[in-house]
């Protein structure tokens, strides 16, 4: 017998999939929110395709952020990169004061409308949590453990791969999870610069004053973000259990 929380998650997933595949079945629920006979269900594009495009953008951007951020985090915690550590720390802090909308909006004039500015904004915004968590993960390795690794004759590379990264993994994964979820939200804003995604539904609702669109767009992205958050949590626990860090 699965736990109630698991059942709830499965139900949410089923609901999301059902809505994406046969949205017209849900039309009666949204009719009360329309005026003057406007369509209750988004009809200017295929919802499953939009959802896939949305997820694709989010995953692609987060993957690149993860590679860059983890790489950078490793670099500045090595002896050779130590000179860059104070600056990179401060930059991470300052970077967090940049609203995602600003990053997105500034990218548009530089690269034009569409997916690219969204990818850039998501990439930039996804860097921060992962970089920060990589740093604190690598730096919070107990000094005695690192010293023992050195003392037993591990090369710097062996120490990194066999000791430091595995110990930092929980925090790094947590950073990736955070980035992923934040990016689901930020990608919604991407629709204001004509990126394909679920934000389109909300924006269409705002433009045509159709509350039903706003509501379904909001519910679908919200549900997706929550499910993704939970899914990442499960993946994280699996990995940690496999590496005995839980």
């Amino acid at each position, binding site marked *: 017998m699965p736990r109630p929380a698991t059942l709830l998650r499965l139900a949410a997933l089923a609901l999301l999939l059902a809505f994406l595949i046969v949205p017209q079945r849900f039309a009666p629920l949204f009719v009360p929110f329309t005026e003057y006979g406007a369509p209750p269900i988004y009809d200017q594009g295929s919802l499953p395709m939009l959802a896939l495009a949305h997820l694709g953008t989010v995953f692609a951007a987060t993957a690149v952020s993860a590679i860059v951020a983890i790489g950078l985090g490793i670099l500045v915690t090595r002896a050779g990169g130590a000179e860059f550590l104070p600056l990179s720390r401060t930059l991470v802090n300052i970077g967090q004061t940049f609203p995602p909308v600003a990053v997105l909006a500034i990218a548009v004039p530089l690269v034009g409308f569409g997916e690219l500015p969204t990818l850039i904004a998501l990439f930039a915004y996804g860097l921060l949590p992962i970089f920060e968590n990589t740093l604190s993960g690598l730096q919070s390795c107990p000094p005695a453990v690192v*010293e023992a690794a050195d003392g*037993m004759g591990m090369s710097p590379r062996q120490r990194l791969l066999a000791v430091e990264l595995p110990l930092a993994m929980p925090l790094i994964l947590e950073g990736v999870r955070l980035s992923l979820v934040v990016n689901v939200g930020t990608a919604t804003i991407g629709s204001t610069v004509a990126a394909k995604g679920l934000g389109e539904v909300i924006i269409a609702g705002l433009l045509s004053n159709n509350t039903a669109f706003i509501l379904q767009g909001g519910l679908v992205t919200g549900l997706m973000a929550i499910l993704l958050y939970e899914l990442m949590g499960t993946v994280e626990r699996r990995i940690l259990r496999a590496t005995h860090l839980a």
Partner: protein
Amino acid sequence: MIEISSLSKVYAEATVVDEVSMVVAGGSITAIVGTSGSGKSTLLRMINRLVEPTRGRVVINGRDAATVPGHLLRREIGYAIQGHGLFPHRTVAENIATVPRLLGWQAARTRARVEELLRIFQLEPAEYGAKFPHQLSGGQQQRVGVARALAAEPRVLLMDEPFGALDPIIRGQAQDDLRDIQRRFGTTVVLVTHDIDEAFRLGDHVGVMSRGRLLQYDRPAMLLTHPADPFVSRLTGTADRALKLLSLTTAAQAMEPGAAAGDGPAVAATDSLRDVLAQLLWSGAAAATVRRPDGSAAGQVTLAGILARGRSD
């Protein structure tokens, strides 16, 4: 054998180890004592080049340590530290197998060695091998730490306050274990400690450091009877140095022929004179009988004999 000559370490302006020279005889234990910040750990870490010396030379078993890449050198030298530094994400067996793996030992040989070590340290392999460090008690973790340092059969073992975090009873046991194992494998041990009693108990030789300099390096008894520096006598303690001296001598060394009168207590040949004195005071007798393991009398230790040994000369 470890020959250290004119070894120094300078950080920015501060000289934390200053022209230290010493020879650690093969198969012996050398204990380094000193106040906090006196450079003990730095000296120790220059031997396996965790810290690169600024000046000077370390020759280990005839080979200049500077001629070997640091990490390869460290694979040949055991290293155990305070707080053990066990890898939390590896099992006890995996932890112990670390250096054999780095050295590319065959799996079967590694496994056999791990089991041997676990047995030596009184940890049943079947029960403890698959456990994770956090599932062990502090004393057990410490033993695994030392076992790990010994895994690749190093001829030299460096220890930095290895027993610092243990309670007195467990610590005593760990010290005895170390003594046994060192004798058994003939390992050359350099051990850093805060605890002067530990140094006297374990060290064949004791080095006293202060402000980066090695003030005296000698047999424990010589430190008590012939301190080279006022700091040495302050560190070793003047109030109870007679008792300390007694604790460095065994009953066998002070034994006279004959047997004690009926009310004299029985002691073993390996008991320290300090323990024998305590027994004599407690029982009110003037002499104790030294008995062999089979119970037969080997000789006696008299109060007068003990008093003569505790005198400075």
